[in-house]
């Protein structure tokens, strides 16, 4: 197994590192340190832009309630992503049940959506659109593990903990997710090149 496929950068530089000791955390501290990553995680996991603020609020409501239980044994981000993952599932389920509005349809098709203001270069925007479309083509299981591994850069044991699946399943599912993602990227780029 390619180590790169497993999110080998378990603790990325831009993320606050796991707390070695039981940290004194409050909601404001967690918000300041992790808001952007929770935002990215929810968006990558398929929460529509129109629902993103509600989903963020739900995540931080759960965080507020569970802070007294958090004893620092797990990394804060692992804990947060576990919460975000389940909130995102709920919003995806709701999106499937609800009638699709034109706005929602545009969000579901990243090619039609405007790029985020934080992504400045044109090339970067194009890559992001392709990547989001490829992500949207994955089924939920593959999408979740791809996002956790390749976007949020979690380690395989962390993913096994968050997703509550065996470690071997993490490996096999991630391999399949990467193959599917790559195939979709290839297909989308071929289409874009053939289109005048």
């Amino acid at each position, binding site marked *: 197994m390619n180590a790169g496929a497993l999110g080998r950068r378990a603790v990325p530089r831009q993320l606050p590192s796991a707390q070695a000791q039981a940290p004194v955390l409050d909601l404001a501290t967690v918000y300041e340190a992790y808001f952007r990553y929770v935002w990215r995680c929810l*968006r990558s996991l398929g929460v529509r832009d129109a629902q993103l603020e509600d989903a963020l609020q739900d995540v931080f409501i759960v965080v507020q309630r569970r802070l007294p239980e958090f004893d620092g044994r797990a990394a804060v981000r692992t804990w947060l992503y576990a919460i975000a993952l389940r909130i995102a599932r709920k919003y995806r389920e709701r999106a499937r049940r609800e009638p699709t509005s034109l706005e929602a349809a545009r969000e579901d098709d990243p090619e039609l959506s405007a790029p985020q203001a934080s992504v400045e270069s044109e090339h970067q925007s194009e890559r992001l659109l392709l990547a989001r479309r490829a992500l949207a083509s994955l089924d939920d299981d593959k999408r979740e593990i791809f996002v956790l591994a390749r976007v949020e850069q979690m380690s395989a044991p962390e993913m096994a903990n968050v997703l509550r699946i065996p470690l071997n399943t993490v490996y096999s599912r991630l391999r399949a997710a990467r193959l599917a993602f790559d195939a979709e990227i290839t297909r989308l780029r071929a289409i874009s090149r053939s289109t005048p």
Partner: protein
Amino acid sequence: MNLDDDDDSVFEQALRADLPSIAEQNRLRPRILAAGVAVGTALGSTNVAAATQASFGASALSKLSALSWPAKLGLAAVLSAPVAALPLVYAPVRGADLVSQVRTSAATVRARSAANALSPSNVRASEAPQTAQVAPEPTPAPAPEPANVIARAPVLAVSNLPTPAALAPSPAASDNASTVQPAVATFGHESPPSEVEAQRSASTLAAETQLLDRAFAALAAGDRSTAAALVAEHARRFPNGLLRQERERARTRLAADPKGE
């Protein structure tokens, strides 16, 4: 196009760079922190249980989340108001909010048992101030002088409580205070609860929250005896409380971590 690892990483990097702006973070901060504190205090425990489960089908969290923003903030204000107003309404024990909130719930349960038995004299005088606080009489009440409280307390409590029929879901309820605690999920009711009911639920939940928050804090600090005592107290006062799942979680941690490490 050859999609080797480096080429793949370009797309992954694009996804990783897809972060909100600082302005976006600042814009959402007051809203999320305010909602997190208010709703988290009043309802978060039921949401925690829901959010930690794989299925979100009919959970209280999904129902809460289905509300619009104005509805969420309004709900947060309604449910947090009784908790926030406790120090103002009950000035004589302002320095003992924690104790007063816990006793409020206990007094409410006992008072409702008294209402079921149609025996107002069963309400003990020592619980009268808390009962009056939960269900205040429309006319201003004097300062809770002990002599006056003894005479007035049953009237204050019973006249503002729901009817016995509404409070007694089962024949065995009258003898067991635990069975007359507020309904578990106000969101699951077909009809919305009355304001009095909402205030009572919020007060009980506040007391439960205080107990279990202290229990988890004691667990985190390694003070197992205190944690066990608080868990036991919660079990005794709220055997069927809103936060019983949280209590069981604390109990599990106590059992699984005998050394407190």
